[in-house]
């Protein structure tokens, strides 16, 4: 197990270099001159353009730029955006917002999603099962824009129970509505995954055996069936946490939450290499770590696939 983890962590290093290089190349392969575009309809004087190009090493060959970037990285310097703000500061400000939002949404998904999955599996075919099915399908089929703006108008403006936007009121008040909206989509998937998996396992031979041996239904359901039914949900939740942490441009935009999704979106649009690479690299690492945790969790849930 220890050896497996070390091996996986070493892979991380390789992936780190590969991915940062790829992202760097991708950002600079985009057509257009980001510095000249800063002036918009007004051209900036040549002297200003030249000074800025020099400041951001934009006249070097891409590979040399990348090497310079890595060099600075190892001294703890992540570079700056075009407005001179250190990328480290940008991320330091934005990551906490996104992490709060993502974790809140994720916990809602875990608790409500698995709860609904178990409940509907045990009450298969009842009105409860049908109602949950109906609502999860309905919600998934509404575009996130529509759902987010509608919820904002209803709960923020009309009822006034939550702030319309911003993070002024801190966690949890400011994060509640956006987290629920974020969670709703994953939640429906989790519930349906758990339900299907539970139904399959409830019919399995080992359940009949356990029942025949006289174990209580409660113990059979929670100790055996649920545990075995969680593997697909855990896979989904692990990867989903990565997506949630990637920031959601739409929800962050609608609710004016200064998180990394917005940052990444605007930095790509304005071709700010150091910002994109910095944020994306952290994201890649998060994804890889989440995958590692998921793989390890499989072993906990199912001893047959434990990594010895």
């Amino acid at each position: 197990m220890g050896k497996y983890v070390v091996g996986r962590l070493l892979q991380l290093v390789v992936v780190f270099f590969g991915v940062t290089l790829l992202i760097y190349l991708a950002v600079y392969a985009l057509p257009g001159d980001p510095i000249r575009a800063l002036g918009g309809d007004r051209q900036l004087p040549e002297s200003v353009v030249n000074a800025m190009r020099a400041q951001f090493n934009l006249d070097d060959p891409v590979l040399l730029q990348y090497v310079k970037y890595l060099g600075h990285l190892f001294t703890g310097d992540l570079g700056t955006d075009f407005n001179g703000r250190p990328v480290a500061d940008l991320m330091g400000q934005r990551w906490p917002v996104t992490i709060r939002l993502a974790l809140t949404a994720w916990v809602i998904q875990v608790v409500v999603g698995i709860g609904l999955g178990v409940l509907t599996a045990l009450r298969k075919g009842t009105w409860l099962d049908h109602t949950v099915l109906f609502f999860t399908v309905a919600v998934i089929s509404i575009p996130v824009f529509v759902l987010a703006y509608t919820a904002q108008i209803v709960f923020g403006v009309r009822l006034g129970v939550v702030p319309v936007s911003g993070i002024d009121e801190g966690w949890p008040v400011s994060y509640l509505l956006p987290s629920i909206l974020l969670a709703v989509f994953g939640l429906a998937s989790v519930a349906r995954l758990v339900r299907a998996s539970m139904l399959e396992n409830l019919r399995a031979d080992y359940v009949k055996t356990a029942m025949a041996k006289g174990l209580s239904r409660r113990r059979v359901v929670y100790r055996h069936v649920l545990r075995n039914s969680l593997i697909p949900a855990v896979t989904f939740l692990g990867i989903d946490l990565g997506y949630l942490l990637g920031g959601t441009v739409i929800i962050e935009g609608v609710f004016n939450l200064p998180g990394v999704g917005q940052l990444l979106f605007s930095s790509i649009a304005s071709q700010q290499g150091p910002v994109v690479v910095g944020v994306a690299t952290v994201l890649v690492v998060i994804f890889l770590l989440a995958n590692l945790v998921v793989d390890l969790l499989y072993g906990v849930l199912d001893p047959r696939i434990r990594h010895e």
Partner: protein
Amino acid sequence: MRMWQRLTALAVGAALLTVTACGGGSDDDGDTSAGSGDGAGAGESTGGTFSVGIDEPDFLIPGRAQGAFDEMHALFSGLVKFGDQSEPQLLHAESIESDDNVVWTIAVKPDWTFHDGTPVTAQSYADAWNATAYGPNAWANNAQLSNVVGWDELNPAEGTPATDALSGVEVVDENTLRVTLKAADSQFPYKLGQPGWYPLPEVAFEDFDAFNEAPVGNGPFQIDGSWEHDVALSVTRYEDYQGPRPNADGITFRIYSDTTTAYTDAIGGAVDIVSVPQEKYKQVTTDFPDSYVAFNAIRLDWLGFPLWDPRFQDPRVRQAVSMSIDRDAVNEAIFGGLYTPATSYHGPSAPGGGTEGMCGEFCEFDPDRAKELLAEAGGWEGPMEIWFPGGVGYDQTFEALANQIRQNLGIEEVTTKSQPGFVQFLDALRNQQATGPFRGGWGSLYPSMQSLLTSVFSTNGDGREGGGSYANPEVDALITQADAAPSLEEATDLYKAAEQRIIEDFPIVPLFYAKYVYAHSSNVSNVIIGFDQVELNEVVVN
């Protein structure tokens, strides 16, 4: 989304505004605002604080900032202001004079101080101008000083400049400056309202980056704490301010990444004054029936042409396109009827601009005549592609324009070439890769026709790419004459003559005189918008 920041920075950065209509859904061009002017600020303050929705500024140092006009006018005061007048009003300047439009003497009022108590002197201006004009600083408003003698030395094409001061700027005494220009400029006092001409205190020069986080300005409000990036910027009234006294005790600028969210927040009452995003123009009359204000921006929106492309050489082709567009229909469909269809090459908010019908029949909607003109010019083969930056708010407008041309000009294949973003779009214009009519627009930073005419239509203009890189020596000559004209009236007549001459060549299809629309909550009143955007001093908290 956050892209809006850049877009609005471009749009807002490009635009200064004038009042034309005030609430109640009136849309005429009469000035209906009341209670404006400096006098209102002279009495007692009414107190209270209010909030304004803004984009995240790029910088707060005036010489460096491309947007951020509201925040900047709270923190800094320049030599002149415009308010809702289209002529410069002296703010910190005592007088601005010249005999020949070349050497200008500027006297500033004594006893003004920065927020740290140090005096605002002629030197404060000279230092700031030198920093702005110094090429290696790479400040965005650098070019605003390009007509000052010595600017070329500070901005060599290669290498570092040998000097760091503008030789054309002379500090005569503590309160007097003498500025020598490279070429005569009758509009110089107008230009002094641009942020590149603002002063900076000594403390700024110790560390520009640190200063940018909590600027020490000379404006009616001083910063409270520091700039909380992407969240807010708070200011309180500066009690030693020598200009017109603000009504409110303080302002919170709330930073939004999405203008639609700011608008929704204003409906909910969480923010007091917001700029209305274009997609809400049709709704604002019902959402804010008594509290929206539409301003005639000094901004012209147009359709430019790849004048380098032989298919667009004949002016009749461009005139045909112009006559095939039903501007009123597009205005209703996209802008809720708030814009004004253009009938000249300059909007009405600067002296001499907005000459009714200067464009003649070519700005009128007449599909039959349009088809005739196109046939006379030899007809059209193949597809016509309309270029614009996608995903930043232009999509609907340019789809609509493409439809108009397709239906009314009888060209079967009119397609849109939406570019991935502004960066790529501007690149296509710069490298002359655009293959069809494209999005064009110019917002002037001061209310003089000089800005649009020089930047877009003169041979060396800094915005000429947006006009299809048009050039005509006759136009250049007329503009130069206007710049050197001994009186403003003569200058205005010559600018109009230049406009007339450009219209004869018809390089662009003028579409609309744009407006900027603001809405405010019932928490505030006396919300006046002028050329300097929101007149923050005038706002009264109820």
